[in-house]
């Protein structure tokens, strides 16, 4: 039905977005690629010439590289699992008839509005501090020794903070999907006396698969680059250093922009591997 006219109009309308994003992607990408083949040390005078693949070799052969990759994947994976499982349960719960539904929804989505820096500071100081934190008070109340969360369980602590931030997002999207579930189908299932579990497995979950796909996709993009949560809480210590954080250390702490840029290129590659992987697994759900 689309005419030649509307096709060219469509192209014109897409042009600004495509051109801008192309620029936003290409300019930094090309500069990053260029830096990554250079010895670029800002504190030693800046650009010190080309070095071939030195930075790339050095970045992967560093003892910090593989642990950082696995920490990244663990954090992303764990947060995805937690937010989706809890998000589905919460969405189902919030969909039930109840008093004060609006208020409860507000309470549940509130963490999404909190800046990552603020939520990290709050969790770190007011909850996880081993002396004055609320958890420490709670542990002592029950006669247990307070846990030094950010050193003894740094990665789980960060997973917890990040999950708290992203659970509302997952819940919101899943809730919208749950609400669109055909109530007639549900009632029919109820009439048949289908047990709750099989109702969930055969009816609800398939219906939610598309929403879950979207949660996975969008959250992965954001989670791969979490930074403030680590910067504020552990500073990358105790095995909580992600790839993004490792790049930060190379670029800003070590002031080795060439090496950090090589790391940036690896991070892009990792992100794309994850993306392709995601597309393969969940892409069918997404006939965008």
């Amino acid at each position: 039905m689309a005419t030649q006219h509307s096709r060219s109009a469509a192209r014109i309308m897409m042009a600004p977005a495509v051109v801008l994003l192309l620029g936003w992607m290409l300019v930094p990408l090309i500069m990053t690629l260029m830096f990554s083949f250079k010895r670029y040390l800002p504190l030693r005078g800046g650009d010190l010439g080309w070095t071939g693949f030195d930075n790339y070799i050095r970045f992967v052969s560093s003892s910090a590289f593989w642990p950082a990759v696995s920490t990244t994947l663990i954090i992303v994976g764990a947060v995805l699992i937690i937010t989706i499982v809890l998000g589905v349960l919460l969405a189902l719960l919030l969909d039930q008839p109840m008093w004060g539904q609006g208020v409860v929804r507000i309470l549940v989505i509130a963490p999404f509005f909190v800046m990552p820096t603020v939520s990290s500071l709050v969790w770190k100081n007011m909850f996880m501090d081993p002396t004055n934190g609320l958890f420490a008070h709670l542990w002592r109340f029950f006669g247990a020794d307070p846990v030094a969360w950010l050193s003894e369980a740094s990665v789980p602590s960060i997973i917890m903070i990040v999950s708290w931030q992203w659970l509302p997002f997952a819940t919101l999207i899943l809730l919208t999907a749950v609400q669109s579930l055909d109530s007639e189908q549900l009632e029919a299932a109820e009439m048949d006396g289908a047990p709750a579990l099989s109702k969930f497995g055969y009816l609800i979950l398939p219906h939610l698969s598309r929403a879950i796909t979207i949660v996975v996709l969008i959250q992965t993009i954001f989670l791969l680059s979490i930074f403030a949560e680590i910067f504020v809480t552990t500073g990358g210590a105790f095995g909580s250093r992600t790839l993004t954080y490792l790049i930060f250390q190379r670029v800003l702490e070590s002031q080795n922009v060439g090496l950090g840029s090589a790391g940036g290129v690896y991070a892009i590659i990792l992100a794309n591997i994850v993306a392709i992987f995601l597309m393969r697994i969940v892409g069918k759900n997404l006939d965008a």
Partner: protein
Amino acid sequence: MSIKKTILSATALTALAGALSAETITIATVNNGDMVRMQGYTDEFTKATGHEVEWVTLEENVLRQRVTTDITTKGGQFDIMTIGMYETPIWGANGWLVALDDLSEEYDADDILPAMSGGLSHDGTLYAAPFYGESSMIMYRTDLMEKAGLEMPVSPTWDFIREAAAGMTDRDADINGVCLRGKAGWGEGGAFITAMSNSFGARWFDENWQPTFDSPEWFNTVSFFKSLMDDYGPAGYATNGFNENLNLFQQGKCGMWIDATVAASFVTNPTDSTVADSVGFALAPNTGLGKNSNWLWAWALAIPAGTQKEAAAKEFIEWATSKDYIDLVAANEGWANVPPGARQSLYDNPNYQEVPFAQMTLDSILSADPNNPTVKPVPYVGVQFAAIPEFAGIASQVSQEFSAAYAGQQTVEEALEKAQAITSEEMEAAGY
């Protein structure tokens, strides 16, 4: 109508002319107590000179990242930057800072303690003016010490510290014998363990810039620290930095605390500290090898080269680091709260000599020697750091390995092995 307009623009012009000599300078600074206090007195500066001041106050790590990016790219966002003894010589050598060699007569630059001006200079030229200077020393609870039946020597050994910590620790009363920094970060736990290693005869690099974490001295340092803190330190000490320990000490949960001399004014301040009237001071401990484990640091104000407002910036620096500023703070908040450690005249002042920690602060500062920091010779300058561009990056990673060892996630041997590998790797990358 048009007459009115003319008059209006004429007044605007005069206002503009008046504003030309008065400028607005932008200052990046750290959010610690003395700096925040200085912000409170900005009006006095504006009144005296007509210059307005915009403050960019940031947490220490964010500040470092922010000003380093700006200075290396010549971004020109700030007219004054608050930097330390680590950055100043490196930046000065690169020609990124305005030399402060033409300060006014009445400013009396010769009054700045030599240890401070030495650490803030490159090739004998001062590049940053110290706002306050610090070393580190022992702060201890005189009541607990007495209860333990011990007496703190003026210059104790680490063995004595261990003994005293054992005597003061009372887990039931939630009192830890000793609180020390274990937090990762080169300016946090990294600074402490480096200064401590000096007293154990260790060093970061040998004369050929080879890292020496495989030496027995380093092993002794880190394992002594860990066993001392495991036995008598607070829970979770691997994440405790200056601030955490300050809170613990103020709440009466530490017998001893070895940290920055500036903390003395906080722990003796009765409004914040529950133990204000029972704090004693001593020199940072040693092992009899001739070096104490105290560091040397200054927060200083520097002007990035290329700023358009150099003259106004200099005026501000002269004001903020002057003797008059010290008098101003003393008059309003008492002598215990003036910025310490920068000027000899402050320590010659009889009023200040009455402050209980004044003499010990001065003695600590004077006993630190950045040009000769360790028992064995080293190629670098700096007590708790080595003033080379790579150090911050290396030391923050090394201190993370140490913190992981403190937390029991790896052994001291493993941590030192990794430290050696990280340092070799980075030094090689830097072309040593």
